[in-house]
């Protein structure tokens, strides 16, 4: 449904994304994982066509949605696509709602814009949608202002806003980071149900490998503007080939772990203004060899639908993290 191919974007001379490939099929949940600063949100902005807003542009590659090329689409047609066929669930439910407007009419917006409903029909639809989001007493909540709602309820409202225009592809940009753990689980559960029920495609952007294991069908691991490994969830967790993927999996706390054994990844994501040569992960990689400094690894298939961009991909197979 959505295919991103060799995407590179530029901000003046900087390239926060350089060669991003992934695809999402209908009915599928793709987890896009990586640390802060690895380019996940940038990827979401590119797909939404909102790069010009923050001063960027696509410099190479393509984004195809249902066969239609998005990188060259004009703004008027893109606007119909946004919310109507592709919708973004924004990161922070605390700031994603207009503080001056009651939440119901904010959800109406999508239906009125994309489905051409009048105010009354939109309201009925919105209340139904809110009830589907398991918002208790939806008809009353419709008339409340955002500041009167809890974080979990606000996130449900944001999801309802995204769904109001009946999109086919949902992009959820860290939908649960601002919420507590119990609410997180409920929201993710809700998203998964919606995808199954409506046969949507979902791109779930997160830095939480645990969440990916729980909710996703496929994973694309992102590091410093590149997809370093991608494949089905089971394959990635059972046989992670990229050292970065392994390190990420090592960061998930497990019950029964001895105290002090939860691993971190030393160092930080490199700044896009000062990128390391060769493989961008080599300064932090525990297995780096001399070649990693000079050669940019190409993505190789290690199994069906499982690609890795690491020079040591073959050799590293099967080692414990």
């Amino acid at each position, binding site marked *: 449904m959505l295919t991103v191919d060799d995407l590179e974007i530029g901000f003046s001379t900087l390239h926060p994304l350089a060669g991003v490939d992934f695809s999402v099929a209908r009915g599928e949940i793709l987890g896009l994982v990586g640390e802060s600063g690895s380019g996940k949100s940038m990827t979401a902005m590119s797909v939404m066509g*909102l790069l010009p807003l923050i001063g960027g542009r696509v410099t190479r590659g393509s984004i195809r949605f249902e066969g239609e090329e998005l990188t060259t689409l004009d703004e008027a047609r893109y606007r119909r696509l*946004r919310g109507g066929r592709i919708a973004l669930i*924004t990161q922070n439910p605390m700031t*994603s709602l*207009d503080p001056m407007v009651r939440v119901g009419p904010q959800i109406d*917006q999508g239906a009125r814009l994309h489905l051409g409903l009048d105010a009354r029909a939109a309201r009925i639809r919105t209340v139904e949608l809110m009830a589907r989001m398991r918002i208790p007493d939806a008809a009353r909540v419709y008339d409340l202002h955002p500041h*009167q709602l809890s974080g979990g309820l606000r996130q449900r409202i944001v999801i309802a*806003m995204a769904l109001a225009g009946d999109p086919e592809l949902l992009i959820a940009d860290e939908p649960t980071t601002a919420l507590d753990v119990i609410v997180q689980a409920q929201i993710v559960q809700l998203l998964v149900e919606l995808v199954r029920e409506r046969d949507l495609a979902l791109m779930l952007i997160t830095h939480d490998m645990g969440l990916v294991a729980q909710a996703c069908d496929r994973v694309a691991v992102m590091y410093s503007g590149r997809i370093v490994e991608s494949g089905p969830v089971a394959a990635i967790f059972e046989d992670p080939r990229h050292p970065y993927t392994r390190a990420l999996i090592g960061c998930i706390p497990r019950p029964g772990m001895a105290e002090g054994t939860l691993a971190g990844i030393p160092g930080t994501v490199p700044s896009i203004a000062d990128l390391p040569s060769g493989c961008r992960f080599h300064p932090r990689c525990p297995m780096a060899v001399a070649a990693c400094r000079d050669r940019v690894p190409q993505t190789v298939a290690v199994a069906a639908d499982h690609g890795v961009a690491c020079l040591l991909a073959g050799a590293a197979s099967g080692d414990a993290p």
Partner: protein
Amino acid sequence: MIARLVDRLMWRGPRPGIAPIVAGAALLCLVAAAFLSPWIAPWPYDQQMLAEADRAPSLAHWFGTDEFGRDVLSRVLFGARTSLSVALVSISVSCSLGMAIGAICGYVGGPVDRWVMAAIDMTWCFPEILLALLLVAILGPGSTSTVLAIAIAYLAQFTRLTRSQIRALKRETFVEASLCFGAGPAHILLRRLLPNAVAPVVVVAMLTTGDAILLEATLGFFGMGAQPPTPSWGGMMSSGSELLFEAPWVILWPGAAIAASVIAINLFGDGVLVALDVKKRRRTH
């Protein structure tokens, strides 16, 4: 916004205190007096009774009479019409024009923003009074040119305030969210940005109305405002200044009216500032 204001004044949420309410009541009385002046004024504002010129306040003339024997109370009441309406109209013009220009500049940005704002900023080279005097000198004295002069004198502050509000709001997540749901620029500007930017602009508009009354009075004092025989507070003070020692009431009453209305507007504006502060509102559940 109106509903919120009523909500606030009904003592829900942070309390603005008693002063704004008293000030609001005083303002209401002033506006009512201005509106009703043809009916409540004891004398016509232009009736000259030369035999009774320069009389001290008495039962027949509560505020005394001026050098032509005109009733000062009646003239203060009619003057309220001129002064308040000139101030209100000029601030409305200034505020709406400033909001429109500021919103477009703030939203569009780029060279449009740079050039338009440079032009607007030039008006800040002059003190308001100088700019207003200059404009009236060009346009000729009278109520209409006073309105225009005051409107232009305060245009820059409304434009700059709106522009900075819009520029800050533009980066808010809810605006981005709205874009992601397919909203166009008109929707973003009119439905998302402006309603969120309007509260501080309204407060500044109220506080500036006080300044505008002063500016109108100043222009009137220099003989550049409403032309005789139409009474205005500034014009009355100007003619009263010649009789400062013989008939102090002629200058005293319009001066007191100016002071009272400016103080009332400022106190009321402060109350509105407290009442409209969205972020301080508590959750209700």
